[in-house]
């Protein structure tokens, strides 16, 4: 019998203060070819009121990825809570390939034991729940249809976070790729009706829950971007009536001004090793790309051109930068090798291409593409150049890719307001994350935090 991995983890919910969800996900477009799965509501084994739902979190996570289509409750043949209760044949007839079942038990005061199992329905049908496999020359019984199974003690505040944790397990078991459901997003919230502090720098879970303010300002805040260890944000601020770049530790609140040259100090991005920034300065005449080594403060000029060069973005290996330049007339994406300083043009389709970043290591980039006056998020293969437009909304900008490359968050317009949009990397699933007040812009997806 396979040992069930039991992990007692202290998933300390970083931001547990705000329970109301300021951002709400609205699904704007369905997915036709996503894999069918079912997340059966976990069975509450205690007395008294049932704690918050974990299964809703898991279902929506899996749906956002664009890879899965969780089945509605009324379409489930039964509501089992453990593997032993599952009628494999009944599930097999539903074309659902995997199901998540689980239980919630009271532990000590305010704490709960949450257990779950991820069942491969197709495998279970074949083996009927007990496969005979060879191990060490002997034929033994295995329950290899159970892809994962864990039990964890969590507090009432940690339900959402643990739901994301289960989603990560399910996603990784079923796709072979790491899940990004415990990541965060940073963004700027602009409330034009606020008489004083119009600009706020916010952090939330990737799905918009647990929204937390980390800075408020009377003057604009721009371009937040995460350090690779997920502990700091770098951003541009106009608090001193000119653009300057700051790094802020999101836990200690310590802030450091790192660039305050004459003119533009814009578009900062941490290098993959966290030791340098790429940024845009206009101190030498017009906007050019520079790198700034944070420990030594050594500044290196990367581009030298009379046209606008901006929006640097590091390659995953830290050896190249993508950037926007209008050296060819209109803004297009170029790539510069930081060692050889050789520059090559990357985008050719559309009137303009802006705001590029790499999608992981797969040789693709995401851009803001302007075609016939419309600004959309698009994906392009660097080597082969083929472009896929992913969004259809108006004035889409500021795309930021999840650390596993599965989803893109971006700024878009909805009913005259700036909101955040989420699109799966294949463009088939889209959701909108509107806020109750103000405009949301400049989203930045965090690296893996856990």
């Amino acid at each position: 019998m396979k040992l069930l991995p039991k992990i007692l983890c202290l998933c300390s919910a970083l931001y547990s203060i705000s329970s109301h969800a300021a951002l709400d996900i609205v699904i704007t477009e369905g997915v036709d070819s996503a894999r069918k799965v079912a997340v059966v509501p976990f069975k509450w084994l205690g007395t008294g009121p049932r704690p918050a739902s974990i299964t809703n979190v898991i279902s929506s996570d899996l749906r956002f990825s664009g890879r899965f289509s969780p089945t509605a409750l009324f379409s489930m043949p039964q509501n089992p809570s453990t593997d032993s209760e599952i009628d494999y044949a009944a599930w097999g007839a539903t074309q659902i390939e995997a199901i998540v079942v689980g239980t919630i038990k009271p532990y000590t005061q305010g704490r709960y034991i949450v257990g779950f199992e991820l069942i491969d329905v197709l495998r279970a049908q074949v083996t009927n729940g007990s496969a005979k496999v060879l191990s060490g020359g002997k034929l033994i019984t295995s329950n290899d249809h159970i892809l994962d199974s864990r039990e964890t003690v969590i507090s009432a505040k940690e339900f959402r976070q643990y739901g994301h944790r289960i989603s990560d397990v399910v996603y990784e078991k079923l796709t072979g790729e790491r899940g990004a459901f415990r990541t965060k997003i940073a963004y700027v919230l602009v409330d034009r009706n606020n008489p004083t502090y119009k600009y706020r720098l916010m952090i939330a879970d990737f799905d918009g829950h647990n929204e937390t303010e980390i800075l408020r300002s009377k003057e604009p805040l721009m371009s937040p971007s995460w350090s690779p260890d997920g502990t700091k944000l770098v951003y541009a601020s106009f608090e001193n009536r000119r653009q300057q770049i700051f790094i802020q530790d999101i836990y200690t609140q310590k802030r450091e001004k790192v660039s305050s040259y004459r003119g533009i100090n814009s578009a900062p991005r941490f290098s993959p090793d966290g030791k340098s920034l790429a940024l845009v300065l206009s101190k030498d005449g017009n906007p050019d790309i520079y790198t700034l080594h944070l420990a030594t403060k050594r500044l290196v000029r990367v581009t030298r051109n009379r046209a606008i060069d901006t929006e640097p973005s590091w390659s995953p290996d830290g050896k190249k930068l993508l950037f926007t330049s209008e050296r060819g007339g209109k803004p297009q994406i170029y790539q510069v090798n930081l060692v050889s300083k050789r520059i090559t043009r990357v985008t050719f389709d559309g009137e303009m291409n802006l705001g590029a970043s790499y999608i992981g290591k797969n040789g693709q980039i995401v851009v803001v593409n302007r075609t016939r006056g419309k600004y959309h998020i698009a994906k392009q293969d660097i080597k082969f150049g083929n472009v896929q437009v992913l969004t259809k909304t108006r004035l889409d900008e500021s795309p930021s890719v999840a650390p596993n490359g599965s989803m893109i968050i971006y700024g878009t317009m909805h009913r005259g307001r700036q909101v955040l949009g989420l699109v799966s990397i294949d463009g088939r699933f889209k959701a909108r994350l509107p806020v109750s007040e103000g405009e949301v812009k400049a989203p930045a997806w965090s690296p893996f935090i856990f």
Partner: protein
Amino acid sequence: MRLNKVVKSLAVAIPMFALAACGSTSTADADSQETNQSATQNDTVVTAPVVKELTPAEKQRLVLQELQKEHIIYFDFDTATVSNTFATLLDAHAAYLRVNAGTTILVEGHADERGTPEYNIALGERRAKAVSRYLEGLGVNGSQIETVSYGEEKPLDNSRSEAGFATNRRAVLVY
């Protein structure tokens, strides 16, 4: 020194401001003015006003107030070319800055909301610098001019319509 029309008209306007200011010492209400007038006519003595001479600082302030009413230069999409439409406006500001060499001005560059915020910062700076160069071309000392770009971060019109975009593509002269 070359004074343009705006400044010339102000030369006429300033004494009139002063006159208006003296004429209504306590109240500008029409009824009470009538009462005052009849009271004065019934008396055996009649007082006459003397126009108070404005101090140079007061004069400068009034000229500046007038200039500040016309202080925005608008641009076409994705360009930073100062249109001839704004020649008169910029002439007036240049004239003021040449005379008042101790005055500094901040030129804010702005963009509409299309395109990316970071590109628009660059575009806003280009507009601010175009206006700065224009003023320098009219004899203003470069050290009197500072520039800042707010890109698309401070729109005047949030409608995201063509008209709204046009309103937001601007450079603003701030004293």
